[in-house]
C-alpha cells in the first residue's frame, strides 16, 4: 500500500483521504464535507494549473495545489 499526497494524483483519479495536516486546513475542508475516510476524484485544474477542482460525493470543491500537499491519500480502485 503506497501513500502519497493529493497534489500528486492524475486527472480523473479517485483516492481515499487518509489524513489532513494542519488544523486550519482540516477544519475548512471539513466544512465542505472533505474529511478522512471520503473518496475524492480530481476533476480538473484551473487554467493556470492551480487550484484544483475535486469531485466529492455529488458536489465539487476547489483546493489549492499547496494545500493539497498537506492532504495524505491512498489510491483507490473504486470510482465515485
Amino acid at each position: 500500500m503506497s501513500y502519497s499526497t493529493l497534489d500528486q494524483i492524475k486527472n480523473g483519479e479517485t483516492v481515499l483521504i487518509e489524513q489532513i495536516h494542519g488544523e486550519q486546513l482540516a477544519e475548512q475542508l471539513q466544512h465542505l464535507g472533505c474529511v478522512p475516510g471520503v473518496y475524492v476524484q480530481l476533476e480538473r485544474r484551473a487554467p493556470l494549473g492551480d487550484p484544483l477542482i475535486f469531485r466529492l460525493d455529488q458536489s465539487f470543491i476547489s483546493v489549492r495545489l499547496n494545500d493539497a500537499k498537506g492532504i495524505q491519500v491512498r489510491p483507490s480502485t473504486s470510482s465515485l
Partner: protein
Amino acid sequence: MSSIEKPFDVEESRIILVGNPNSGKSSLFNKITGLRQQVGNFPGVTVERKKGQFRIDGVGDIEIIDLPGLYSLNPISEDEAISATFIKDLENQETSDVIVYVTDTNSLRRNIPLIQQIATLGKPMVLVLNMMDLAEKNNIEVDVSGMSKAIGLPIVPMNARIGKGVDELKDEVKRVLNCISSGSWQNQDQQLTQEQTSAEIIERFVQRKDTARSTERTARLDGLLVHPIYGIFIFLGVLFMIFQAIFSWSSFPMDWIENGFLVLGNWLAGTLPQGVLNDLIVDGVIAGLGGIVIFVPQIALLFFFIGLMEDTGYLSRVSFMMDKLLRGFGLNGRSVIPLMGGAACAVPAIMSARIISNKRERLLTIFVTPFISCSARIPVYTLLIALVIPAEQQFIGFNLQGIVMMSLYLIGFGAALLTAFVMKYLVKAERGSHFTMEMPLYRPPRWSNIGITVFNKVKAFLFEAGKIIIAVSIILWVLSSYGPGDRMQEIELKYKAVELENKSEVVANEKLEASYAGELGRWIEPVIEPLGFDWKIGIAVITSFAAREVFVGTMATLYSIGDEENTVGILEKMRNAKDPVSGELIYTRATGFSLLIFYAFALQCMATVAIVVKETGGWKWPIIQLIYMSSLAYLSSLLVYQWFQ
C-alpha cells in the same frame, strides 16, 4: 394533538433560518416574507443578518431572521462568526425561538455534523430538506418520515425556488410554537446528539439510485467554462460584452429620460409661481436629479449581469480561475467577488470581503476595492467621455466611447492590483492562506431573484444618491445664488442700463463668480489649476466628495443657472462653455482626460470611508486609503493634463 395546543404569543416568538451557504435559505426567506432582498448562488451572499415578517394564517406575523450561511459553529470567516455567535447566544434569549435548519438535500451528508452541533444547544428545531426537485433529478430518495423519527426532528421537504413546501413549513412552525407555549414541548433530538455518525444516518434513509445528472451536467460545463484556453476567452468575452451592452443598449432610454426631465423642468418653471422657490426647484433640484436618473439604465444593466453570473454559479468559477493570479498580488480567488461587486458599488463590495478568512488578504481587498470603477463613476465617465469623444467615432469597428470606458475600468483594476502588490510587502501576514471553496452546481438563473436584486440596487442608488443630490443641490443653489456683501445687487445695477445681446447669460456668470460658491471655487483653484480644472470644476470636486455622481448634478446646477429657457441638456452646455477671458473652450481633451483619471483614482465617496472604518475597526486604514488615493489621483491627473496639453 390540538387538545394540548395553546395559541402562542407572536410578539414573543421568532424563527431563525440557519444553514450552509448556498442552501437556498435566502430563497426561502424571500418566498416566505415577500420582503425584497438579495439571493445568490455564490457562497456568502448574505453577510449580515436580515429580518422579515412571516405570516401564519389565523395567528399573525412572526419575526423571521435570516443568518449568513455557515458550515460550523467554530467559524473561520467574519460572516460565519455573525451566525455562530447569534446561534450560541439563543440560550440567553427570552423569546421562544424555533431554528429552521435549511439544507440542500443533495449535500445532506456534510450537513449532519452542524445539525448535531446545533441540536446539542437544545433549542426547538425544524429541518428543511431543500432543493428536492434537484435531488429527484439526481435520483436521490429520502425516507422523510423514517429519518424524522430516527433523529427526532420534524422534517419538511421543500423546493424553495417555486415555493413548494412553504405552507407545510408554516404549519410545522405553528405546531412547534403551540407546543412550546403550552409547555408540552420536549426535545426529542437526543438520538441525534448522541454518538450517531452522519454516514449511518445517511445510509439508512437516503437512497441514491443512479448517477446524478445535474452533477454530470456541471462537470461537462466546467470542461468548457474553466478550460485553460476557452475558459479565459469566454470570461474576457463576457466582460467585453457587458461593457458594449451597457453602452449601446442603454442609449435610447437615456435619451428619453434626459428629454423627459427637460420637459418636466420647463413645465414646472411655467406652472409654479415665479420667484425664489421656482428657481430652487427648477435650477436646483430638478436639474440635479435629472443628472442622476439618466444613469439608471446603465446601472440596472450592470447589476443584471453581475446578478446573472452570481445566480447561475459562474461567479464561483471566475474566483477559481483567478485565484493563482490574484494570489501573486496578495489577494485571494474570493477577492473576485468584492472586486466585481465594486464595479457596482464599493460599499456592499467591501462588506462582502468578509468571506475572505485570511486577515491580510481581506484587508488588502478592502483597501483596493474602491479603485474598481463603481456605478457612481458611470455618470461622471459618461458625461466626460461624451464631452471629449464624438459618439460616431469608431476604433477597429467598435464604438470608441465604449473602448475608452472599458479602458478606465482596466486602469482602475490595474491600480487595484499594483496597490495590492505593494501592500503585500508592507502588511505582515498573520497566518496561512488557504483557498477551499465550494463550486456550486450550475443552475438556470432564477429571473425573479435577479429582478429583485436589480430593483433593490437601483432603488438604493436612486434613494441614497437622490437624498445626497437633493441636499447638495439645495446647498449649492443657495451658495451660488447669494454672495458676500451686496455684490449681487452691484452687478444687477452695473448691467441695468446696458443693452447686450446675451445680457442674462453675462449677468448670471458674473453673479456666479461673485457668489459664495464662486468664492469656494476660487479658493481651491490654485491647487487644481495645474490639472486643467477651472473654479466651476473646483466646486464640483468639493461637493462630489459626498459621492462621485454629485459631480454631474453639481455641473447641471452650475450650468443651468442663468439659462432661463432651459433648452439644452448639461452636455451641450458644457461643450459650449468658454473661458470668459481667453474665449477658449474649457472642456478640451486634456481637461476631459485629466478629470477622467482624477475620478478613476480619487476616493470621492463618504459612504466608502464610513464602511472601511466599520469593517477594519478603526480610522487608521481609511485615512491611509484616503491620503493614498487622493495623492495618486492628483499626480496622475497632473501627468495626464500636462501630456495632452
